[in-house]
């Protein structure tokens, strides 16, 4: 047996322990490789969506690499710790430091190269399928399979580097060990749990929660920066001190502790928590990340589903009075709609800007009959206004509530028209890009009195025209007005500012874009979340196997003392459940708080709520987790019974 064979056999014959870890690393290599295949695809970077997908893939790759690196490092450390006794024997038998380093390096590289080869191989096999999905999402005609060396080179290069760094880092962390400590069954030195340190956990987490809520409420970014470090530190203290402290206190209360059947379970739980602080901590953080990615997905999902509510109109064309293209554009839009056989309802508005004596600001004035024309086609209630009466046009859903009890007496200065604005139209009509936040409807009689333009401008400058196309089948509008839309898009990025005499928005076209982005995002997030979940699962699996021998002895003793099968199952539940669900509950709490504050922010700026989607997302995660638990519990009991 040569030294290399020795390292090889160490890994191959420990395959049961390495299995989950190996699977998780294979899977992250696989996902990384498929993203790279898309990243280097020769015909993807043509459209704006192509750019979006490139950006998404690159971000996902970065997250994957960073995460994989920490996952690999932590797992390697856990493996080495579990093998201290073995290393103790080897050092005793005369293994030197270089040989130890070589052993770890060879073993890590063996696993690393195997998972890179298998991950890339499967990745290449699945790429065709992946491309099919992406092609559907991006509505490309073809996304052919191709072969290039860049994706292979990138994947192999990145993961090989990661494995090499992880190997050297793991060796470096093991250097300080002394042989004599390795061999003897060490009673781990545990610091005393004090009230002080227990409070740290609660306080730090409390501060970070408060920081997140207050930061959002006050729209103060500085507060948001303290949230992650405080939360992470607090989580660590929570597991290392706060929970053990609480359980220890409960233990002191013999009245309750001894009477309840929890005697064994609680002491077990304290032991489990205290000896696995780092595992609990890592799983919590990884799970929080998973929840947050799901939350981000929910945000996009809810934006997509609430898009229609936010865009009641199919297409809107805004034009200055002196726009030379006006007639030509409207005619071409109508022609296109007709040739696509889409029914529509065109409303035309002339909107005039005036100065309000109440606010001293500009106010955009709409005419009652023109608004009613649109409202009629939308099927919304009509507006009836007498002379001197006016109504707010809401610029967002929230505005309906805030403006409802708002009464303003004002005079349109230029033409001395007195108005009482005492109501708000109860529906959201125009997309927020088109009307200013100061828009009102006045009666036709009052509108006719407007003869003087906005002070300091001509009539042409103080007014604009608005064409709205109400199209019931608005989702099929993606082929309409593509040319005009492209001109608008181009002008939008003009560094000198927007200078075209018109503006155009096609909800259908945007919708298809948003839908594609959303689907792409879903694909990316689901794959990344799957990597996270698998990684967290692999930690649990590994810990379970590492503790199996001890547990076997433990349950063997209990069975000798007369324990029925049902009781055994109940005990196994009490033993596994905290390990399994405790990090999840904490992660659920963390991500809930972050998502709640995120929701406040979203409602404020984009006016959407993600509560429903997040609840659905979390619920499905919990279901997956419960299934996963019963799977692991089943394997665990099988192994326990084998030990007899």
């Amino acid at each position, binding site marked *: 047996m040569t030294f290399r064979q*020795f390292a090889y*056999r160490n890994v191959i014959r420990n395959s049961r322990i390495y299995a989950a870890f190996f699977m998780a690393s294979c899977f992250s290599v696989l996902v990384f490789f498929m993203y790279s295949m898309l990243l280097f695809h020769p015909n993807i970077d043509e459209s704006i969506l192509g750019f979006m997908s490139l950006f998404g893939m690159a971000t996902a790759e970065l997250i994957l690499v960073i995460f994989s690196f920490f996952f690999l490092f932590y797992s390697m450390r856990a493996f080495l710790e579990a093998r201290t006794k073995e290393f*103790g024997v080897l050092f*005793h038998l*005369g293994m030197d430091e270089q*040989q130890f380093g070589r052993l770890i390096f060879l073993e890590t590289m063996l696993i690393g190269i195997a998972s890179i080869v298998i991950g890339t191989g499967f990745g290449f096999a699945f790429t065709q399928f992946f491309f099919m999905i992406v092609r559907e999402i991006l509505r490309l005609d073809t996304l052919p399979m191709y072969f290039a060396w860049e994706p292979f080179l990138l994947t192999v290069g990145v993961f090989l580097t990661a494995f090499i760094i992880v190997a050297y880092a793991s060796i470096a962390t093991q250097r300080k060990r002394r*042989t004599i400590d390795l061999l003897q069954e060490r009673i781990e030195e545990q610091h005393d749990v004090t009230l002080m340190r227990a409070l740290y956990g609660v306080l730090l987490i409390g501060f970070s929660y408060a920081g997140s809520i207050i930061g959002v409420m006050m729209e103060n970014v500085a507060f948001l920066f303290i949230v992650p470090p405080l939360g992470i530190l607090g989580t660590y203290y929570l597991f290392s001190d706060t929970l053990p402290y609480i359980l220890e206190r409960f233990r002191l209360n013999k009245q309750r502790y001894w009477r309840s059947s929890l005697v064994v379970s609680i002491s077990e739980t304290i032991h489990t928590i205290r000896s696995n602080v780092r595992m609990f901590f890592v799983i919590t953080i990884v799970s929080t990340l998973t929840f947050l990615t799901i939350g981000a997905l929910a945000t996009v999902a809810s934006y997509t589903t609430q898009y229609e509510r936010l865009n009641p109109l199919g297409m809107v064309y805004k034009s200055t009075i002196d726009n030379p293209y006006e007639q030509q554009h409207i005619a071409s839009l109508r022609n296109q709609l007709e040739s696509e056989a889409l029914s529509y309802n065109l409303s035309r508005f002339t909107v005039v800007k005036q100065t309000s004596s109440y606010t001293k600001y500009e106010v955009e004035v709409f005419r009652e009959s023109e608004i009613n024309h649109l409202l009629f086609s939308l099927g919304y209630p009509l507006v009836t206004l007498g002379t001197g009466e006016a109504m707010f046009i809401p610029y967002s859903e929230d505005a309906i509530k805030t403006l409802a009890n708002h009464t303003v007496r004002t005079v349109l200065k230029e033409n001395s028209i007195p108005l009482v604005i005492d109501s708000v139209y109860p529906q959201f009509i125009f997309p927020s890009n088109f009307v200013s936040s100061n828009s009102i409807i006045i009666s036709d009689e009052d509108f006719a009195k407007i003869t003087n333009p906005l002070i300091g401008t001509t009539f042409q400058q103080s007014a604009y025209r608005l064409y709205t196309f109400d199209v019931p089948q608005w989702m099929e509008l993606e082929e309409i007005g593509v040319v005009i839309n492209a001109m608008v898009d181009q002008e939008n990025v003009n560094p000198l500012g927007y200078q075209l005499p018109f503006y155009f928005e096609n909800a259908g076209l945007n919708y298809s874009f948003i839908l594609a982005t959303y689907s792409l995002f879903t694909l990316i997030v689901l794959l990344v979340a799957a990597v996270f979940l698998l990684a967290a699962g692999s930690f649990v699996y590994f810990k379970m196997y590492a503790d199996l021998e001890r547990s076997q002895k433990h349950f063997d003793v209990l069975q000798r003392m007369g324990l029925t099968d049902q009781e055994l199952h109940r005990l196994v539940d009490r033993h596994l459940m905290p390990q399994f669900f405790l990090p999840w509950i904490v992660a659920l709490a963390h991500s809930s708080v972050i998502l709640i504050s995120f929701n406040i922010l979203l409602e404020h700026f984009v006016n959407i709520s993600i509560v429903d989607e997040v609840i659905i997302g979390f619920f499905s995660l919990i279901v997956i987790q419960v299934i996963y638990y019963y799977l692991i519990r089943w394997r665990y009991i099988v192994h326990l019974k084998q030990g007899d």
Partner: protein
Amino acid sequence: MAILQLKDVTKVYEGKVTHRAVSQLSLDVEKGEFLAIMGPSGSGKTTLLNMISTIDTPTAGDIMIEGIRPATLTKNELAHLRRRKLGFIFQDFHLLQMLTVEENIVVPLTLDQYDVEEMQRRVDSLAQSLGLTELLHKRPNEISGGQAQRTAIARALIHRPSIILADEPTGNLDSHMSREVLELLSRVNEQQQSTIIMVTHDPIAASYCDRVLFIKDGQFFNEIYKDERRQTFFQRILNVLSLLGGGVGDLSSVRVSQRHPQ
């Protein structure tokens, strides 16, 4: 000249309570000697053995192995010293679970990068003399405690060390297997002129040795040499143990009442 020399060796553990595990102990072991070290629990036997094993260092005093002072060596040189000059036998065998019996035996040679053919030659001859030939391809969890300890002994012999250090080698074995292992050790000692230092609780195990050193509270207490008959030597060991008093009897007195050396 002695193969192992200890001079005024002292080991102090610093901690919340300073504890003197070994105190000014001097000892010479000659080549080919089979030495037992006995003493009550906590008397410093294992600490002493660890210091001879070079995995622990004395606080004061001098240790010399075949004329080499481990204290002057680097960590790596110590590793090389252990892998060439010392063989180890442990109470709970410490076989590597993922290796077969054969692979476990050759680990010391693997670490020293021997030629594979040479390894095979040595394993084969050693397995034959220790009766392990049938077991070579089994894994440690498939063999009995006695077979595991024989494997561990083979591992301790394969590199032909100058000194074999055994820490309670019969501690985890039943009486039948203990006898087997002890007879094996004394055979190895006689035939190959190996030096063996064995820490033990068991007066029967000690009665197989040439000399028994008793320590108490880390200090030299007594030493006796073997005579013609093992039965009388055993009786003399028991006498010293009863003088040592207290904790010594904890395990062995029960055994003594149950069985006698054959």
